[in-house]
């Protein structure tokens, strides 16, 4: 009896040891928590790039899609003979320099989906602080280009945040236009929504939105886009920014709602 029990125990322990050994033989990758960028001391380009590279290869989770397979553009290599991301970033969007383009594509990715790819990238601010985003921009600029991110970018953003905290307003500047089409262009609505010939067919079309939805529903969808996801668009749930309530005035919002409700 003792011998049988001993044999069973040995079989169990050996099996467990084999599986534990296997788990320890493969590459060991830990999912890191995004570390805060320490602003103390001199902020040099080298420091920013080094911090950004750590985030890119670690907590940012960028390597999951960028640089592997066909999910997202390869940032580390040249694509279409345009060079690496640091070399080609200033040619992606007219009117945007490299730094601005990279920052926007990280924080408003739905508006900057490269042709041929699906809009699967989340707003990185969900997992990274603003300072960390800037270090990421610096790292990406360094891949074939010149690093233009400076301490001013970080401190400017921090000042903006403090102002926002003090005044209760968003750091994003408010538009003064009352024209709904201009407003929609400024807010980047057409990055995902189609209205006539304008825009991309990622989110629900707005061409006939007034025939399908009441004004109240449209208002709610602008202010709280996650409250109700239109059928067939569940995959893109959470992509639409939820801060439009802070970025438009009440009058602008009502003009927008009225305009959209009239689209039949």
């Amino acid at each position, binding site marked *: 009896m003792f011998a049988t029990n001993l044999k069973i125990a040995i079989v169990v322990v050996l099996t467990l040891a084999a599986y534990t050994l*296997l788990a320890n033989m493969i590459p060991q990758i*830990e*999912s890191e*928590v995004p570390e805060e960028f320490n602003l103390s001391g001199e902020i040099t380009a080298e420091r920013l790039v080094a911090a950004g590279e750590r985030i890119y290869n670690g907590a940012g989770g960028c390597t999951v899609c960028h640089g592997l397979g066909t999910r997202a553009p390869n940032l580390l290599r040249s694509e279409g003979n345009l060079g690496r991301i640091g070399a080609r970033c200033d040619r992606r969007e007219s009117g945007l320099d490299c730094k601005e383009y990279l920052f926007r594509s990280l924080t408003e990715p739905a508006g900057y989906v490269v042709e041929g790819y699906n809009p699967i*990238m989340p707003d990185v601010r969900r997992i990274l602080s603003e300072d960390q985003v800037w270090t990421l921009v610096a790292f990406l600029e360094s891949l074939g280009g010149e690093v233009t991110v400076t301490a001013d970018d970080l401190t400017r953003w921090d000042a903006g945040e403090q102002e926002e905290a003090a005044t209760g307003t968003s750091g994003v500047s408010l538009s003064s236009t009352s024209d709904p089409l201009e407003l929609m262009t400024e807010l980047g609505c057409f990055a995902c929504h189609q209205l006539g010939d304008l825009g991309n067919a990622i989110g629900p079309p707005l061409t006939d939105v007034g025939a399908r939805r009441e004004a109240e529903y449209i208002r709610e969808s602008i202010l709280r886009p996650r409250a109700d996801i239109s059928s067939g668009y569940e995959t893109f749930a*959470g992509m639409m920014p939820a801060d439009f309530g802070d970025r438009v005035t009440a009058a602008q919002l009502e003009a927008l709602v009225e305009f959209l409700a009239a689209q039949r």
Partner: protein
Amino acid sequence: MNARGLIRTACLALVVALLLTAGADPAWAQAGADGIREYGNFPVVGSRVAVWVAAQVHLMFAAFVLGVPMFAVVTEAIGIFGKDERYDRLSKEFTRLLLVAYSATALWGATLTFLLITLYPRFTIYLTAIFDVSIWFYVALFFFESATLYIYYYGWERWKKGGAKLFHWSLGILLNVWGTAVLFIANSWLSYMMSPPAEVTPDTAPAQVQFWSAFANATWMPINIHRLIANVVFGGAIVSAYAAFRFLSARDQEERAHYDWMGYVGNFIAIGALIVLPFAGYWLGREIYEYNQAMGITMMGGFMSWLWIIQAFLIGVLFLAGNYYLWVGMGRIPGAERFTPYTKWMLLVLIAGVIVWATPHTMIASREELAAMGGTHHPFLGVLGVMSAKNTAVNLMILTTFLSFMLYRRANKRPVVSWVKQGTIVQGMALGLAAAVVVFYGIYGYFVTAIVRIGFSVYQVLTVLAAMILVVVLDILMLRGAKARGAIRWGEMPARSQYVLIVLAVTFTWLMGLMGFARSGIRQHWHVWEVMRDTSQWAATPALGYAGIIISACVLIFLAIVSFVFWIGGLVEKPVFATARSSGESDSGLLPQVGGD
């Protein structure tokens, strides 16, 4: 005080000691901004490991006590309607194991709860604020389930005949209803942590979260179904390990025959349910992708990508060991020798399947590693590691295992229906056609876009399922009134076959721990995905090597306690056998006939 009372007292003392230790030193605590303590700290191993171990061991026992009643009630039904008392006795023996395991489940559940309260107080408050109503229901159901279990077991001999027996069986069904409801409620809590409704943000107060949308969140039902099936698999595996343990320590041939048969039934249930488990897993994975692509990509291609290689290895062990047990078992079946030549080919398919399934593809790699590979994919792995090849491999492995079962089932039978030849040809064609369809879509998948390719896996799965259903239905009709080629020699199994059952149980348990880590780990540093951040010192999700050590520790703790449960079961069983032998009950069918079917 009986043995159960002793366990309960000892474990309660342990819980109290842990609580006192965990909460005694204020230096371990981290205070939140509003003065409410965010986290406690558990000595030596830390809070994360403490909660991890408690949750995992609790889940292992919970899976066992939810899975076993499912097939206890099925085997009881076979006993009632098939008028075969062996199955009734087997069902009772399953249920006896439940009693002690049930106490252990409750104790580990309490341990987990107390550790959450003391180590993650803010998170626990948040979760209870949303789910308080369901927690009350959970507790009430627990009372009902306990009461039903005790009445079910202790009423076995009292309600043994006629209408009373049907009443007793209905108690078994009721036990399953309570158990399933308990499972569904608990699943809502953990699935909410993974997939909170889209409208819930970090600024949403718990009171503003709509209960039902939180309860029935995106991954709730897929997890329910996946766990229901997995619990059956797990319960079957542990029961067959129990049978193997009893077989190896049996004192005579009669006892050996009984536990050989019990091990076979347990393994049949485990492997049978395992065959459909990947389909439920596929659904769950798809829902995770639907909910949040970033989470899905993290799961399959991010830092967890290597986890699936380990999973493939473990499932390979399960398929190979499960088939090996069947092939060895055919040695005790007269007539099975005619199928022996086929086993080497089935082994070949299984090994090839495991190799393809365990081939990595999209891995996180450093720039140096990418340069060494000559690209983002290794030239060989790029071809074999894709879903087209993997889906083809796993479907062929499932078909092969199914064929093993069918050959095992057919081994001892000589069909008497006139259309046996045509029926067998149709069965062969169904399996052959299914394999051809699987291979066709596997190859075609290389020539289409990813989104089209993903749809192909549905065709492959449906074809395999349809073929299996057709073959089983034909087999049942074909074997009506079939004659036996000879009596199955229960008990005449080599000892190595029983060690295979034990390896299977250990592997199932380890796999359960690994999948638990995967499901929980994809949240990364979030208590509730993108809603409540883990700001403790244990927020980082550890690498697989570390996780493997913790999983092994959990499995060891679980198996040590289960061994104790088995020992308790043995204390009761020995007098039963002695009584049965002395009263000659084996002749009446209470014990399995040595050499009987």
